[in-house]
């Protein structure tokens, strides 16, 4: 049958699941996997395909390649800032949650920080799996209220007159930060530059200013 779209019904189902499933996460996942496979609702080969894709192929190296290209190619940088979804598709990186991707650029006076306070939305196709802290209560609660305190914990200290632009991913737009190119990297090629770009810099919890 179709979904009920009934809040009360779903809350009751969740309460029953709480009492019927093993409390320990690893056991709970194991029990559910065994049931779902036996029932014919999932194919174990599909499970492996998902896990491998985000282990081997899709990860922050993609985002780093995008950033490095933007640093060396002014035309690409302009396209990325205008329509990041199209620009990353051009590099062969279109995928999950990249359909409405926006790139926000750090400058000498503005530092960008990305969060999803309501769930944990993240541009999987460009950055891979989100780090545990991005999905954690602490980051989701504090990034909008105390961004300077959060950044200090990540070793990023900003001048008081530097503006922080926080982007709370409340719709299907997904954000990636285009960090400033680190000083002292004038002679580096695109590949060497990409190796300097951290995943955290593309979320905004690293500024790369001491990277080279």
């Amino acid at each position, binding site marked *: 049958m179709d979904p009920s779209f009934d809040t009360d019904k779903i809350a009751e189902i969740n309460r029953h699941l709480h009492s019927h499933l093993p409390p320990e996460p690893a056991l709970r996942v194991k029990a559910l996997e065994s*049931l779902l496979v036996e029932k014919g609702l999932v194919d174990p080969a599909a499970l492996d395909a998902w896990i491998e894709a985000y282990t081997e192929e899709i990860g922050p190296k993609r985002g780093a390649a995008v950033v490095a290209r933007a640093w060396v190619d002014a035309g690409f940088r302009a396209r990325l800032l205008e329509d990041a979804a199209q620009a990353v598709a051009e590099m062969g990186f279109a995928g999950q949650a990249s359909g409405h991707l926006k790139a926000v650029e750090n400058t000498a006076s503005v530092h960008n920080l990305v969060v999803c306070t309501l769930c944990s939305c993240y541009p999987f196709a460009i950055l891979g799996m989100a780090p*545990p802290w991005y999905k954690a209560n602490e980051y989701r609660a504090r990034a909008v209220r105390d961004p300077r305190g959060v950044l200090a914990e990540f070793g990023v200290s900003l001048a008081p007159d530097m503006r922080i632009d926080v982007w709370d991913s409340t719709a299907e737009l997904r954000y990636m930060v285009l960090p400033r190119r680190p000083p002292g990297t004038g002679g580096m090629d695109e590949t060497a530059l990409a190796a300097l770009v951290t995943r955290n810099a593309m979320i905004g919890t690293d500024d790369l200013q001491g990277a080279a």
Partner: protein
Amino acid sequence: MDGVHDLGGKQGFGPVDRAHENEPYHGEADARAYALCVSMRAERDYPIDWFRHVRENIDPVDYLTRPYFDQWLQTAIAMAIDTGDLSMVEIATGKPESLARTPAPMSPEDVRAMLVTPAHFERAVADDPAFVPGDRVRTASQGHPGHTRLPAYARAASGRIVAHRGAHLMPDDGARGIHRPEHLYTVAFARGDLFPEAAGSPDRIHLDLWESYLAAA
């Protein structure tokens, strides 16, 4: 709904824990939970905001303490029970009462196709946008018992439209099974206007908000 999921601006949380930050999955169970959830999602075409709303209705203590993908998996399971694809008896016994009615589960080829196919949420609408960049707006002062993407910390707040993003499927309706597009805007708020202790801060908080969350200010 005023659930515990609406974490933005909540106080009392400690430092951000950066453990395991460079591993794609937080252990084997985390990886399996993720894969199980996304493998079940193809069983039915449903609005993404129904998934979000089902997760928001996880027991509050579980929501705040259980691993992230463990919650995704519970959400997928709750949805399968809601649609009759699984029963609570099967959950309790761990044994199927019958085989799945759906023709075939998601295959590895389906997975490969999904990994290169972005979803799009923008739709055509007949009406013109009510706001243009630069307009001052005020957000709704109240929530409602269903799903919404206007966080509590940004209610009854004054901001400025910085971009019109086209019309996107409206999440409050999506969680009720209704596919209805509505104009979407990126709105900037002064951090000091949202949080009293940040008065005078140059920082801005940006949210992507649907037209019906907003009124001219």
